[in-house]
């Protein structure tokens, strides 16, 4: 793995909990790794599996979804919808050769600024350990084979 490898994490944060928790972490001047790129959504239930696939397809090393704790969803049950999609998508990704550690769903309430810090740091550390995403085998055949055929 390259010496200065910094995993890129695309983070989808619910406007009402995790996004606010991240704001709180800021106002509390907590320090954590600069590897996340936060995309604000109104609810974790807005996160279309396509967004996650797109992120991985475009080279993200990890994807993090932050939503409200069960029972606390600002829209009552959007987070459950997210949870259900998460489990199925996680299994699909695993079968596509994307390690589990690369895709996470976390419940982080608006009050849990410190949790944003610990979750992001933990994920970054796990992704560093994993190293960069593996390369796919080349579409092109080996040269001598081309010559032969």
């Amino acid at each position, binding site marked *: 793995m390259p010496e200065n490898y910094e995993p890129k994490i695309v983070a989808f944060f619910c406007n009402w909990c995790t996004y606010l928790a991240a704001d709180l972490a800021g106002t509390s001047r907590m320090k954590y790794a600069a590897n996340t790129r936060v995309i604000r959504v109104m609810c974790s239930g807005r996160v279309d599996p396509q967004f996650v*696939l797109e992120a991985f397809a475009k080279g993200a090393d990890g994807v993090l979804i932050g939503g409200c704790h069960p029972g606390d969803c600002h829209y009552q049950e959007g987070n459950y919808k997210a949870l259900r999609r998460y489990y199925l998508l996680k299994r699909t990704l695993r079968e596509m050769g994307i390690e589990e550690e690369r895709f996470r769903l976390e419940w982080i309430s608006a009050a849990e600024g410190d949790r944003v810090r610990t979750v992001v740091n933990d994920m970054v550390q796990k992704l560093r350990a994993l190293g960069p995403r593996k390369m796919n085998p080349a579409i092109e055949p080996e040269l001598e084979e081309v010559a032969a055929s």
Partner: protein
Amino acid sequence: MSEKAKVAFYWCASCGGCEEAVVDLAEKILEVSAAVEIVLWPVALDFKRKDIEAIPDGGIVATFLNGAIRSTEQEEMAHLLRRKSKVMVALGSCSQLGGIPGLANLWDRSAILEAVYKGSPSTVNPEGTTPQTAYKDNGRTPTLPMLYNTVRTLDQVVDVDYYIPGCAPAAKLVLDAVETLLSGNLPPKGTVLAPDRALCDECPRRDTRPDKLELAEFKRPHQIIADPEKCLLAQGLLCLGPATRGGCGGLCTKGNMPCTGCYGPTSRVRDYGGKALTALASIIEAKDDTDIEKVLAGIPDPVGTFYRYSLPASLLKRKTLEA
């Protein structure tokens, strides 16, 4: 003859079902063949590559190419025909989305050769022989073409103007497409020549789906006797109709079997599997992690289910293999 519009048909990695779809035009085939001059159709006609090359670039009105791109030969023919054709039409699931041969993208070439020539219980192969692209047999060197590691859709190899979805495409779609192309007023480039609504719109069972359907479990087709009238999803079967483009008229659901998604996504969707996945996961009843896992056990093969026809066209395109 030469007055007639030149049309070409060609196949790559496919099963021939798309040709059958054309044959299934039955009597209508005579009208078609009367209207156009078919300059290339390996499955039906002789042709010379020289003849195709002799045709000026763009001299062919339309080429209908079915099958995924799997080998050097297929890729080269795709490029040649693209050059010679005003319009390139990807015919059928394999050419549009990769199709079932696209499932090869879960492995690489060597894994497949291994399974076929060494893993098979009926194969007696003590020397571990595998077919060679260039085999030296005392002085003689019979050759075989080269298979790629990754199956690609036609538009990942050449520029594609239109698509006809389906495995196999409904004969009517093919006929309509030919007529549209001959009519001269062409739809916008990239159009999939089929309805742009999901299958439910055509499914006779739609009205039997409850307005607020939530599922306690998923069933596999062999586990229940499906009611012939009721919405199959409402019966717990993995019907992908909601995520799948219509145009077939619901042949499978009329056959009392769930839609498996061969017509691919609508024009608004970037990744068929992602949407098929959300269509099912969103309506699960369970709330707590272990219950959800239990329900999802009813989908034992997510990739094979959601990407059965579209793995090469998916955002991830293929499985990431150990380096």
